């Protein structure tokens, strides 16, 4: 059986609000959070202000002032979930600590879009080490990535919409293409970045179309199923061959907007298939190769849970209401809206009108801010066709114009609820539901989270890194760390971590390091001022 190596990087949203007035400046906030991490956590510094931690993970501030935590490299989906949860426990502790120091609540959110502005998103990226030719991977995996959102979608609202368009995957409206090398704009379903962070001979598939999740089942399936598709492609199989999508991005958008999971999309062969059917195809491919040497030892368990989940979605889609992020959210949000007198189904018509109204407001140069009845009327006038249609729609559905602001407030509340759903530190809505015991999202075998805060995974180079960091952290000014090694300043010895499945701690003298793996250690051996490290 072949071992796999994978990891998750999660960018979090952070904010601290003063009572009754504005927010703490974000850049200052994340710097203070990082300062707390330096003080509190056993670590070795990286080259750019970030930290490698004793469990083998990395914590740093990424593009857009987002605190970002990576898991250590893991060999199975249980460890991935375990280290995501451990990282969040650690982050929650730092936020609590900073809250006490600042005297205002520091909030961290697991979400991927900002409802305060229409175009802002941040990521939860997946990495899968492989040996396949990168050129063959995209065709095999794009149909999987476009359709897996029926169980991996975070759920939420389309942040481009001025209405309340529920989507299985709020990241989808922010994807601009099918294949792209960009990660901050014009993002694609398939990201071509291939930075292995290992010695030569390996590639790293970097996926950025996914989302941060709360459900253990969704997290576990996301990495488990995707790793199996990568393993099949690496073995020369063509799991996506007969389910290639004619218009992958459009197909993903269609699937994301269909909580019934019944919408069909067209394949390049002219067949019309649902996301469930395409996922069943991938699953059947994996099941038919379970005994292959190329498959990881946990493939059978992933297939079993994969099949169970697809069957549930097929037979009783409401089962997702307690298990998957998007299902839980949809059930809660529909209930909340209903409690306010708004039927969920009514939103289709409302969303169409809001798109028309927002378009009309954009045409007259109205500000891009939350709508109010006065704003609509003042900017468009009561005789504007969009306003007339809005009035007629409200009347047809038993609402008065005077209730329009209440509808707009309901929208704002639901957007806040969505942001609060994944709030860290036990204060999120998901955590509240989990404590109440009303969810069925746990994955058997995901355990020992507290231990994972300090201890690395049992195998792979992350174990060597973590153990070394734990031992060296008390003298961390003498070391610099990256994914492929630890540099001991002064002696310039390097702990070689360029072999992904390294099982022993091997320190190289500087000359050995430079000659053995010149590309692997190039970044580590270049100090911050760019000058080469002095040879001794």
């Amino acid at each position: 059986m072949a071992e796999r190596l994978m990891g998750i990087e999660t960018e979090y949203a952070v904010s601290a609000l003063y009572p009754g007035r504005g927010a703490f400046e974000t850049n200052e906030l994340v710097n203070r959070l990082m300062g707390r991490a330096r003080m509190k956590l056993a670590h070795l510094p990286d080259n750019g202000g970030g930290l490698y931690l004793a469990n083998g993970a990395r914590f740093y501030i990424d593009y857009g002032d987002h605190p970002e935590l990576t898991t250590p490299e893991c060999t199975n989906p249980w460890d991935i979930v375990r280290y995501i949860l451990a990282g969040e426990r650690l982050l929650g502790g730092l936020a609590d600590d900073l809250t006490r120091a600042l005297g205002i609540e520091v909030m961290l959110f697991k979400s991927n879009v900002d409802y305060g502005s229409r175009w802002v998103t941040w990521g939860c990226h997946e990495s899968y080490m492989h040996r396949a030719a990168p050129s063959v991977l995209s065709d095999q995996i794009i149909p999987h990535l476009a359709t897996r959102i029926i169980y991996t979608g975070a759920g939420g609202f389309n942040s481009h919409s001025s209405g309340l368009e529920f989507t299985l995957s709020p990241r989808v409206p922010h994807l601009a293409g099918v294949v792209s090398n960009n990660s901050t704009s014009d993002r694609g379903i398939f990201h071509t970045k291939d930075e292995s962070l290992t010695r030569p001979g390996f590639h790293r598939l970097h996926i950025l179309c996914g989302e941060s999740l709360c459900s253990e089942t969704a997290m576990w399936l996301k990495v488990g199923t995707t790793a199996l598709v990568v393993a099949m492609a690496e073995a020369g199989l063509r799991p996506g061959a007969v389910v290639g999508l004619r218009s992958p991005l459009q197909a993903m958008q269609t699937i994301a907007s269909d909580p019934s999971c019944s919408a069909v999309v067209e394949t390049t062969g002219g067949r019309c298939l649902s996301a469930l059917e395409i996922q069943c195809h991938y699953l059947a491919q994996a099941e038919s190769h379970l005994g292959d040497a190329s498959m990881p030892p946990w493939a059978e368990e992933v297939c079993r849970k994969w099949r169970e989940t697809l069957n549930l979605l097929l037979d009783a889609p409401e089962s997702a209401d307690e298990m998957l992020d998007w299902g839980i959210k949809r059930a809660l949000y529909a209930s909340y809206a209903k409690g306010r007198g708004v039927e969920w189904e009514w939103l289709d018509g409302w969303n169409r009108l809001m798109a028309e109204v927002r378009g009309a407001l954009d045409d007259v140069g109205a500000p891009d801010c939350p709508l109010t009845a006065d704003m609509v009327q003042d900017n468009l006038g009561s005789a504007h066709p969009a306003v007339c249609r809005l009035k007629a729609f409200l009347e047809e559905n038993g609402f008065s114009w005077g209730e329009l602001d209440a509808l707009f407030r309901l929208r704002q509340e639901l957007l806040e609820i969505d942001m609060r759903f994944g709030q860290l530190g036990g204060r999120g809505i998901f955590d509240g539901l989990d404590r109440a015991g009303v969810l069925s999202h746990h994955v058997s075998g995901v355990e020992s989270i507290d231990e994972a805060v300090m201890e690395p995974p049992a195998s792979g180079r992350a174990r060597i890194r973590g153990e070394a960091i734990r031992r060296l952290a008390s003298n961390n000014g003498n070391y610099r760390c990256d994914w492929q090694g630890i540099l001991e300043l002064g002696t310039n010895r390097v702990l070689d971590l360029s072999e992904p499945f390294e099982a022993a701690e091997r320190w190289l003298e500087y000359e050995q390091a430079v000659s053995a793996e010149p590309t692997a250690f190039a970044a580590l051996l270049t100090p911050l001022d760019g000058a080469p490290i002095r040879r001794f």
Partner: protein
Amino acid sequence: MRLRERTDDDRVRSGQNPADGGTNDANLNRLRLAGQDLLTAGADAIQKALSGDSERFLAATRQQGGQ
């Protein structure tokens, strides 16, 4: 259909949707009961989480784009 403003007793109201008990299918019944529990707990969790001024909350928690 009438619109209601959010009130402090929403949590109780949205949790009160008793099953009609019209089916003998154990699975469906289990799903329905579990669904009710979820909505009751959800209403409670939402009530505790909401700031009371969502527009201000969303404006104040605005983020920059990441990757």
